């Protein structure tokens, strides 16, 4: 299936990282597509949790927000928001937190709060929502975003959620016992943190992508793993499932039913 778009490749590559028995806290947007693609392909029993309180949800179409009715209708159970954050997230029951990033650095720290000074911002972004504690309470964190040099920056302007800080054992120093970011999937490549420095390192390039493209769209000097290879192209099943999901989603959301 060589006709996959970069966006589709990103979603497919991200979906593959999810294991069938994962309990996944799903961020909206690209993470949601990847998580549901995993559920509809190799991980039918994966548990998807949205911060609105829906546990074990299996939406037929992608939700537009973290609280769409579809999420509740198809969930194993829907709990209150305090219970969600206390028993399920803080309780340590979530194996993977899947986040999108507006601004990201090489250590997986994310900024979705402000551009410029916090108290006198150039651009006021929406803020962290669940991300600060998703980043520290989930077993590990997957991140997905489209590459662009203003998004992937040398130094983020605000630590909305903590990744590996300035690298190394920064998490342990803060008393955070979870793994933090273990995977970054962009539209061009798959990245994993270096075992020691924790700097994101390209481990595979998506089909047809050159190293220069990755570097040109990234604000820091990109490290490539010695054994970096090519991401397997989407299979027919993956691509068809994703396209069907997107088509169903578009049809549902352009209609008037909610």
């Amino acid at each position, binding site marked *: 299936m060589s006709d996959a778009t970069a966006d589709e490749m990103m979603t497919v590559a991200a979906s593959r990282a999810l294991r069938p028995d994962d309990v996944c806290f799903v961020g909206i947007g690209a993470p949601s597509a990847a998580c549901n693609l995993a559920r509809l392909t190799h991980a039918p029993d994966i548990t998807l949790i949205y911060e609105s309180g829906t546990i074990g949800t299996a939406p037929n179409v992608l939700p*537009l927000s973290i609280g769409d009715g579809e999420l509740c209708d198809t969930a194993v159970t829907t709990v209150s928001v305090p219970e969600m954050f206390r028993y399920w997230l803080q309780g340590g029951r979530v194996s993977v937190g899947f986040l999108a990033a507006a601004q990201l650095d090489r250590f997986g720290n994310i900024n979705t709060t402000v551009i410029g000074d916090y108290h006198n911002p150039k651009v006021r972004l929406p803020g962290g929502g669940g991300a*600060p504690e998703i980043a520290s309470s989930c077993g590990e964190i997957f991140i997905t975003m489209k590459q662009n040099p203003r998004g992937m920056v040398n130094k983020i302007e605000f630590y909305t959620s903590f990744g590996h800080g300035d690298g190394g054992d920064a998490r342990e120093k803060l008393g955070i016992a979870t793994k933090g970011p273990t995977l970054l999937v962009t539209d061009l490549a798959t990245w994993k943190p270096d075992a020691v420095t924790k700097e994101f390192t390209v481990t595979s390039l998506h089909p047809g992508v050159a190293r220069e493209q990755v570097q040109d769209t990234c604000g820091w000097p990109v490290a490539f793993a010695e054994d970096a290879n090519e991401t397997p192209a989407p299979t027919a099943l993956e691509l068809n499932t994703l396209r069907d999901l997107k088509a169903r989603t578009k049809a549902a959301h352009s209609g008037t039913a909610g």
Partner: protein
Amino acid sequence: MGKVVSLRDAVEANLSDGDVVAFEGFTHLIPHAAAHEAIRQGRRGLTLIRMTPDIIYDQMIGMGMAKKVVFSYAGNPGVGLLRRLRDAVENAWPAPLEIEEHSHAAMANAYEAGAAGLPMAVFRGYRGAGLADVNPNIKTVDCPFTGERLAAVPSVRPDVTFIHAQKANKKGDVLIEGIVGIQKEAVLAAGRAVVTVEEVVDNFDDVHPNACVLPNWTMTAICVVPGGAHPSYAHGYYGRDNASYLEWDEVSADRDRFSAWMKTNVLAASASDFVDRASSFRSAS
């Protein structure tokens, strides 16, 4: 059901200038009609609390009603940024806006603590997060058993909370179903609570024993406002009007267009307009 009053009367009696107020709803059941009534009544100097301030707080802020907003995620759900809130924070238009920003976990715990009558919430949070450096209301407490340092935030105790719910029964008890969000806590944490509902039914005999029901004595006033959550949705009644959320992104991008829209759709409108607004999103059943 002595507590059933018109929305106008309920807002007039329960919301005053300078109040700390929460209009809560978590994507689902957002109390749009109540917020619009508050806008029509022109309240000023409000401290607006909400985990997910969205269109209604964008509108109130744009109308200059807020002096402060306490929140954890300020976005137009599924669409993008809140342009009136941005304009207030970045450009002080139409007035400066103080912000107190938390994470969802902190706000959820703070509402929970408010409902529980506690002065603070204690949780494991904010580790490595920048908010802890810029928000003086984020402190710590040490566990006397393990020594672990935990985060602490003040509990949320609004003067008044407004929510929208599916239904009341004739005794005035209120049922919330589906994505119940933080609404029960927001009501129990508040000094006063006003609930708009889709309808009043005879009784809740067919309701699950463990459903989220607020007894009548926990609420100050109940207002029957069918469609009162539009363009948000009411599980079992009508779906989300996604086009309106997209439209808001355009309306709110421009100050004049915003002002004109508010005049037509809020200032010159009334609570009874919500029936029609929601009607085309009602499911066939």
